[in-house]
């Protein structure tokens, strides 16, 4: 007998007295974890196929289903935990790299949870956002040192700026990695909320050009879907150097996901793998980056800000400073907890640094070099809620990107199996029978609601601090205190400890 050592991660419970054998779960599960047994005339489950995405649980009309961890324990061992044992089983069987989706799930320190926000008491009144204006408007783009004013009029126009009504944008996720319905949802939500979504590296589907005003188009190492109309279509161009979930490596969209639409949008043959090289093959140095930045500016008549997205790695402060000097108008830093459609598991879980430390280090470095005000700083990779946004801005960010959180608004349950193409929520898949499950009108409503809710919360906390315009929080680290942090961590974050 041949044992392949695989055991289920989850077990599906079916309450027999509730199940009507309606077989909705069978049709809903793209992983085929639910099976109809013709002989017994009842629905059965194959636990090993379950990814715990809750699709069946939420679609079961009689609430007969629940899922829990598979009750199987290895002999306790603090070093050889089940994760490492089962990883070895998998690799010994496949001879392949382990893949993962979304951001790392390892228990690294979450610095957001070690930062506390200030509020006004007595000496300085808090401001009530229900009674007073509270402004979140944010501009991203290059800022001059001063203004040229002649006879009371502006004598020189500002460089191009992105104007955001709330400091939150939807992060780069490509058509291919996510479905057209998911992208359309984000595009509509961005338009509705006065912010931006990002095409990722998969080009811009012809149906999305009409949202160009709220689009940031990305140019990545594979140059998929990049052409003149594409560059002109958006309000800004983002050069993607790296991604927080997998710094230093490229991307791979398997041929099975490259259907007709993806093929046309990416400008590659149908069914072919779309492989993004690890580096841009025309950027081997900072001076090469400058050339690409200016090529893109030339191509668009200097009418759009150019962003450079880099993964948070050890030397991030120096790299960001180089990017600013190379002509980037916006620098995007993606922390190591950032999500992805597919990444080698060991890379995802071990490469890069937390965004909180990277952001603080970059902001401090750019200030010590007196160039922070010239560029905008956008952070991505692990923003979970409005207070994370507040903390990021107080540490020095101009705005945040949300990716995972945006997908959760559309229904993502963080099962981390995006790379299988079997996303039951119609998000990380190109299978038409699955993508149709996500109605872009409903998706847009939910994504916009998320931004609306977070914006309300940000205003509430801003008012509490006695601040009525977001720019007064930006880099205002006195509004933060650390809790449970070492001297070193406090010094990198540039904040005092609570009680100080």
């Amino acid at each position, binding site marked *: 007998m041949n044992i392949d050592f695989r055991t289920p991660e989850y077990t599906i419970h079916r309450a027999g007295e509730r199940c009507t054998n309606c077989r909705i779960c069978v049709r809903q599960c793209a992983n085929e974890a639910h099976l109809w047994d013709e002989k017994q005339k009842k629905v059965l489950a194959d636990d090993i196929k379950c990814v715990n995405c809750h699709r069946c649980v939420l679609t079961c009309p009689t609430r007969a289903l629940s899922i829990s961890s598979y009750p199987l324990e290895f002999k306790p061992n603090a070093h050889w935990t089940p994760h490492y044992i089962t990883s070895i089983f998998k690799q010994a069987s496949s001879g392949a790299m382990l893949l993962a989706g979304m951001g790392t799930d390892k228990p690294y320190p979450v610095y957001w949870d070690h930062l506390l926000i200030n509020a006004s008491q007595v000496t300085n009144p808090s401001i009530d956002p229900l009674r007073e204006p509270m402004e979140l408007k944010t501009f991203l783009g290059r800022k001059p040192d001063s*203004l040229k004013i002649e006879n009371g009029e*502006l004598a020189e126009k*500002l460089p191009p*700026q992105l104007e955001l009504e709330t400091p939150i944008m939807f992060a780069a996720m490509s058509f291919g990695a996510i479905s057209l319905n998911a992208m359309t949802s984000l595009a509509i939500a961005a338009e509705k909320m006065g912010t931006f979504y990002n095409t990722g590296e998969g080009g811009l589907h012809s149906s999305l050009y009409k949202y160009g005003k709220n689009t940031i188009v990305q140019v990545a190492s594979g140059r998929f879907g990049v052409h003149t109309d594409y560059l002109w279509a958006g309000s800004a161009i983002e050069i993607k150097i790296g991604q927080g979930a997998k710094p230093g490596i490229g991307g791979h969209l398997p041929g099975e996901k490259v259907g007709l639409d993806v093929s046309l949008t990416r400008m590659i043959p149908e069914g072919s793998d779309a492989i993004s090289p690890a580096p841009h093959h025309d950027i081997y140095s900072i001076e090469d980056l400058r050339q690409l930045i200016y090529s893109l500016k030339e191509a668009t008549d200097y009418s759009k800000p150019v962003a450079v997205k880099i993964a948070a790695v050890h030397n991030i402060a120096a790299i960001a400073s180089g990017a600013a000097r190379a002509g980037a108008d916006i620098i995007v830093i993606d922390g190591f907890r950032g999500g992805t459609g597919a990444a080698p598991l060991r890379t995802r879980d071990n490469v890069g640094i937390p965004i909180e430390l990277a952001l603080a280090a970059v902001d401090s470095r750019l200030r010590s070099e007196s160039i922070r005000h010239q560029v905008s700083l956008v952070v991505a990779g692990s923003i979970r809620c409005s207070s994370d946004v507040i903390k990021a801005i107080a540490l020095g960010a101009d705005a945040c990107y949300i990716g995972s959180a945006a997908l959760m608004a559309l229904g993502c349950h963080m099962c981390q199996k995006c790379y299988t193409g079997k996303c039951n929520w119609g998000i990380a898949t190109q299978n038409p029978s699955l993508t149709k499950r996500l109605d872009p009108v409903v998706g847009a409503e939910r994504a916009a609601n998320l931004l609306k809710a977070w914006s309300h919360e940000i205003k509430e906390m801003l008012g509490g601090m006695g601040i*009525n315009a977001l720019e007064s929080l930006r880099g*205002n680290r006195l509004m933060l205190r650390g809790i449970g942090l070492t001297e070193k961590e406090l010094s990198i974050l540039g904040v005092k400890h609570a009680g100080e």
Partner: protein
Amino acid sequence: MQFREGQVRIPSGCAISGIMNRKGNLFSGNDIIKSIALMHDRSNGLGGGFAAYGIYPEYADFYAIHMFYESGACRETTETFLNEHFEIEIGGKIPTRKVASVTNAPIIWRYFVQPKPDRLLQSGLEVDEYVAQCVMRINSEYSGAFVVSSGKNMGAFKGVGYPEDMGEFYKLDTYKGYLWTAHGRFPTNTPGWWGGAHPFTLLDWSIVHNGEISSYDANRRYLEMFGYKCSLQTDTEAITYIFDLLLRKHNLPLDVVVTAMAAPFWSAIERMEPEKRELVKSIRTVFGPLLVNGPFSIILGSRKGFVALNDRIKLRALVAAEKGDYVYVASEESAIREVCPQPDKVWAVAGGEPVIAMLEGVDQL
């Protein structure tokens, strides 16, 4: 242990008052002392001070450096620095009276100086910038020494005590100026340092300020990129540097500076004429980090006049009045009526709307 400004951030509430004669006629310090004394309860005896313009006509072309020293030794080391960088026309103690409530006064000196021509040439700086940098060096590098003021034909007089006691201590009744501002302090901590009292000054600028700004660290960190050292960690210091950066270094018109510091709301900007809208939008885009947020009322004094300003949602009191050539501003109307019982006009200053009083023939501060 008591902390000082610079070691810890000390917020404070306050009273402010200012009087100016637009024709440049000189008047004694008696009125400003009476005005600020009326608001006695707005301060708590932990800081009072005055800025006076037009008081040194005989040395009008010299930078008047007012100094606090903690000891004779630090006076000597600082004077070595002053001698290296300036030609000192004359220097000496600032005359004071004995006042029972004023104790622990530092050694208080003043010098009338000009930059040494060769040092100035070497530095490659504008003369004002040269003086400003020397002032910042003394304040940050010479422990025990503090530059109280450094402008021409003006001076700051301040210390720990109620403002009216400071006025008496410094014999301000014997000085004559065309512009006086005053400050009574109510710090929410217990510092006992004379340097921490207001006004805060740099070159000709003096600031008296009531409030606690919530944008302090955002303002400070922006200013530091332009070479300012916010060593006192006070709002007043930051606000002074904002004015200095925008008015002197960037040479921007006063209305632009006021728009940057107390910006109109976006809802109001939307309603402006297209050209004005673009200008104000650009100001907010570029100088957003210099928006002064949270409650404040300030009087910025300069050789050419003053501007008084409230935060944009008026979280602090500020009243203004006119009588003939005189312009008055104060935290309370009573403090104006105390010295000018029947003003021609008196009004509550709106949030974000500056009261500008300039000497005749001057159109920019």
